[in-house]
């Protein structure tokens, strides 16, 4: 059904008049021009399309846009504030926790969701939380290290 959906996108109000069953991924990429969120598998199996809705990491390829009406949506484009990278982005950058970069937005946002809930996750908790995100280049080792470092940095910053 064609209707107007309002939500908060990266801290700013957003309104789209679209088929409300359209998947959030397509709304973000083609109605709103935010291409940092990637298409990978179309079935919620790889995590490349992950965004934050409220406090949760969700697969935007399998989330109809009507499900985010009235909610807060955060994409990779909204993670840095006033030109300053988020500590997770800083840590991914420092550790070169990517190669081709195609899964990176989803990895960073899923890590963000983890740190919202668990400020100081153990290595095992990180692995469990990230396990259904795929990376073909094999950057896993560095992604884990980057998340560990970001968690430490966040903790340090809060003190």
């Amino acid at each position: 059904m064609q209707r107007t959906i309002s939500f908060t996108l990266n801290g700013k109000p957003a309104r789209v008049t679209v088929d409300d069953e359209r998947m959030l991924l397509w709304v973000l990429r083609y109605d709103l021009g935010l291409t940092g969120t990637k298409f990978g598998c179309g079935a919620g199996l790889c995590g490349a399309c992950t965004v934050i809705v409220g406090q949760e990491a969700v697969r935007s390829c399998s989330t109809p846009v009507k499900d985010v009406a009235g909610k807060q949506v955060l994409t990779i484009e909204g993670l840095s504030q006033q030109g300053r990278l988020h500590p997770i982005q800083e840590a991914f950058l420092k550790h070169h926790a990517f190669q081709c970069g195609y899964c990176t937005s989803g990895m960073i946002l899923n890590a963000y969701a983890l740190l919202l809930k668990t400020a100081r996750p153990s290595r095992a908790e990180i692995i469990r939380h990230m396990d259904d995100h795929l990376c073909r280049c094999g950057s896993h080792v560095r992604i884990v290290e980057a998340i560990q470092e970001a968690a430490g940095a966040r903790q340090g910053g809060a003190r």
Partner: protein
Amino acid sequence: MKRDDLSRRDLLAGSGLFVFFPVEPLAAFQEPARLPSRQGYPTDFNAYLRIGADGRVTCLVGKVELGQGAKTSLAQLLAEELDVALEAVDMVMGDTDVCPWDMGTFGSLSIRQFGPVLRGAGAEARAVLLQLAAEHLQAPAGRLQVKAGVVSDPSAQGKRVTYAQLVQGKRIERRLEKVPVKPVSAFTVVGRSPRRKDALEKVTGRARYAGDMGLPGTLHARILRPPAHGATLKDVDTSAAEKVPGARVVRDGDLIAVLHERPDLADRALELIKVKAQFVAPQPTVDDKTIFDHLLKAAPPGRVVAESGSLPEGEKLAATIVEETYLNSYVAHAPMETHSAVAMIEDGKVTVWAGTQTPFPVKQQVAQALGLAPEKVRVVTPYVGGGFGGKSASRQAIEAARLAKITGKPVQVVFDRSEEFFYDTFRPAAVVKIRAGLTGAGKMILWDYAVYCAGDREAKQFYDIPHQRTLSAGGWSGGSTPGLHPFAVGPWRAPSVNTNTFARESHIDILATKVGADPVEFRLSHLTDKRMRRVLEAAAKQFGWKPARTPSGRGVGVACAIYLGTYVATMAEVAVAKSTGRVEVKRVVCAQDEGVIVNPDGSRQQIEGSITMGLGYALTEEVRFKDGEVLERNFDTYELPRFSWLPKIETVLVENPEVPAQGCGEPPIVTMGAVVANAIYDAVGARLLQLPMTPARIQEAVKRG
């Protein structure tokens, strides 16, 4: 199914019957089986670099950034030779209108083969600039110093001129011959690990891939695909799809597509076509179980790759003969970014943004498909979301260009995951047969090796065995033998070498076990190659290898390989649950000698990536299929390595400044099959002869004992 049969049927059937060829004629545009030692690169250094009026240096290369870090390492090479700051170098990669020709980004050649070309260009440009500076400053060139693009005369304070001032944004017309490149000892930029040039864009989501080009008015195309390779379309009714508001249906020969400004609506319209499409199933051919017998029967005649001594003599001298057959399945590339392209036609010129490893060959293919002169086609390669050999073939770029021509609009073709699996040029299934002999004293005396359908790259073994022969029958490069494979095959990260290394290094371990020797000591006692001895010893030291007979119950294994000039030794520790057949790879140590190391952190990234990716083909990845139907269509059944699989990975870069920089993006992956197989044997005494080593196969091997 034979391709000839299909062609005949196509002719007989007349109009209305569309045939989907099981094997695409892609081979000519893929990585060649034997890599050329030299390429037809331009000799004019201006082809590779421009110095702007603002002092920034643009480096132009036909290579592309697939994630392997070439954007950074190639910039390092140019900055080094030109004596400019790395930060001042802007890379332009894989744009056929502005970059110098290149065959493609594959074979770990960017540094090994293209590196010297780029360095030479930088060195010549620097020498010319120095001459120009000498004239400008009226000082002998020999006295001048260059730092970060500024030439100064140390004996005259304040006498300085920048590259930018000398060049004034123009092309440099002067040439010099035979300018030497810098010696390794003088390197200040090469050999370091600077921040990757793609880092900021990739952590902020600003990095653009072919599917992100977003031209106004772009139509998203979804294309009708056959259910199986070899299936023929009998009938289709597109009228329901045509009624979808905004949808446009195109039929052009074998291409039936529906286009819409919204990808989801194009998808929905395609569903309406799919339900009205009737296909004739292909004739029964092979499946993933019968394929190996088929390959042995259908493979072309073998070719001797290497031979020394005499096999009959070796047979005579052998006290013990050990024979085995090794198998590996088809494996998918499965990059996270599916094949993507956007094509646009303006004033008779086509521009295609494509996620491809081969922009220049794609340009030729597009020109051919559209009946245009090559200069009317431009291929631009943005960031590529993983290639691994699978984006040497770029069908999507041609489809986008054809549809852009027909519709007159920009057209985007982004494969869905199902298409990505279906049209992948898989790593071929393959068979290796080895017959080896040991003397009474426990020395290898005979090595009779035959590889079928994997290819001959690095098939020749490097141990000291007096009587040996290596045969190779059939390769991985596409449809060279019609009917051999039920779908397209092609180069997969370190083509042919994963297969050859699995077989060779497994067999060496079996021989070591036979004579009751430690696998590392057994290898060393048959190795005079100094580089190989060094990496093996380096790996053993880091691993803390303690000699023992296998199976020792500890679950440790070793495997060695050479890949195009790079030497690798890998050791692994595994735990095997006998009851379930599940393997946990706990630790992997990899020592590598890649000659001069351009970027140590980049090399480590490639080693870590190879080890992690290699766990997939070792343990789970195999393409199941039946009669041309590819049964793997997404990541629910085709299992890639995950975070929870992660071993502790330790990399040892064995420095070797005497050897020019070699490739590092492929070598370590080739050892992963054998190192895990050997560690499994050491753990539980079960020998795995087939990849992947799934729990079922491990259970079976345990039972067999």
